[in-house]
């Protein structure tokens, strides 16, 4: 299964990963090879088989509704890239 560079660029955009022009060819080749590998799944005998997500097929445990966390903002923000007045800052977003 082959991808072209345009498709790879789109995937990279969805994943928010910048790929240099000089590397796009390599990524395209690598991804195409991987897809060829995983295409082997298409012939697997999966009729009437339901998907398996968690290997032990457990079900979700519930947690009591109690407040257990305290304010640790300073500790969490001391190594953050950019903060001001307790807020995380990112370049201005226009909605």
């Amino acid at each position, binding site marked *: 299964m082959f*991808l072209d560079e345009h498709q*790879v660029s789109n*995937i*990279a955009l*969805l*994943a*928010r*990963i*910048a*790929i*240099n022009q000089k590397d796009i060819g390599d*990524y395209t080749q*690598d*991804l195409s*090879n*991987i*897809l*060829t*590998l*995983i*295409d*082997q*799944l*298409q012939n*697997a*005998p*999966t009729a009437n*088989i*339901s*998907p*398996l*997500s*968690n*290997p*032990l097929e*457990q079900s*979700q*445990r519930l*947690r009591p509704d109690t407040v257990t966390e305290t304010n*640790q903002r300073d*500790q*969490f923000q001391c*190594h*953050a*890239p*950019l903060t001001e007045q307790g807020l*995380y800052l*990112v*370049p*201005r*977003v226009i909605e």
Partner: protein
Amino acid sequence: MHRKTLADIAQGLAQKEFSSVELTENYLRRIAEFDRTLNSFITVLPEHALAQAKQADQLRAQNKAGPLTGVPIAHKDIFCTTGIKTSCGSKMLDNFIAPYNATVIEKSHAAGLVMLGKTNMDEFAMGSSNENSFYGPVKNPHDLNRVPGGSSGGSAAAVAAGLAPAATGTDTGGSIRQPAAFCGITGLKPTYGRVSRWGMIAFASSLDQAGPMTQTAEDAALLMNVLAGFDAKDSTSIHKPSEDFTAKLKTSLVGKKIGLPRQFFAHNMDSAIESAIQNALKDYEKLGVTLVDIDLPTTDLAIPAYYVIAPAECSSNLSRYDGVRFGYRCKNPADLEDLYMRSRGEGFGHEVKRRILIGTYVLSAGYYDAYYVQAQKVRRLIKQDYEQAFRQVDFIAGPTTPTTAFPLNNKNVDPVTMYLNDIYTIAVNLAGLPSISIPCGMSQQLPIGLQLIGNYFSESDLLNAAHRFQQTNDWHKQLLTQSIR
């Protein structure tokens, strides 16, 4: 001293042959001397370790020591450690000081283990050679021109070289077992849900498990006693009654059955490996084990299924690395999109990016059913295969890897070729089963690993089988005694 096992050390400390401080200083010296060559540690913690060692000695003086109090250990740099750099082998987290402890770390501290440092690893646990680390490749102590395996390559190399008596690793497709095989040590991947994933930086959530990497099966059992257990903070953690994993070590293996999958042995494996495995199986027969031919028809589907599921989960798990709240942020982002694109483009290495891209693709509209859902269905088929097999046998055996440690910078070229090396280990993660790799031979001075797979929650039985084997030979002692040049 550095060849002492955890069991030896525990006994030595108890009998006051040496102190934890002496022991720790010894390992720190060895690390200082040899790790520039091996590069198995990302962060060494001399002050922290010695402080812990001192405290351990004090506890022992007060007769308050537990079985492993004061025993040094190295932790894979995937476990969050409060106030200490936790990089996951990546530039993305090069500046990350974890604000909390992983449960594995908490339990280790509570048991009195002394943390020597954080070991090198393939970035975000993605890789089989430890060449995908931001901090440079790790060398195999048996041959410095070869890889130690990955992603827990640093832990494996450190134990093999006697820089730590034991270490923790994680295994998503073989990342404990394969480096254990390449470096000639013992590595156990527990049943999914046995060891808490809280604080263990996620790669593929439904596949990841933490486990011990040690010199012997007995040591692995000792360490499992520390690491295993239900954790309410991990929704996938399993409730099992408390278990002493050393209790059954010496049990006789008479009457046990080992299954040999036709599909494993039909594959191309190194002839030296094949003969080492056959010899190991003969040893097991001498221990009273019966060998049974079995079928695992889905064997060849495991790699494709894994390389859909693992990248899919990781593509989502790694979305949080966006330069906003922690980790690497690119310089002078022009706008929000630029912040994301360049922080992630610059912060992640190639293998990680490849897997995120594949994962993104297989989850995307139009491909989700054909790839992801299909892979999940195949996963069920694989699980059924193993369940069927375990109705007939107690363990399934085979080589851990098709080759011995390959040279650095060799297979690194083509990702798919690299992936195909996971053929024996990978299905185990898909099914969530426990599995152990133990040394069973050498080929041109490179270790060979035998893998045993057990049924769900049968770690004690696996460790028993491994221990009895280790009592009949010295393969697990073929570790470095000479200095590393």
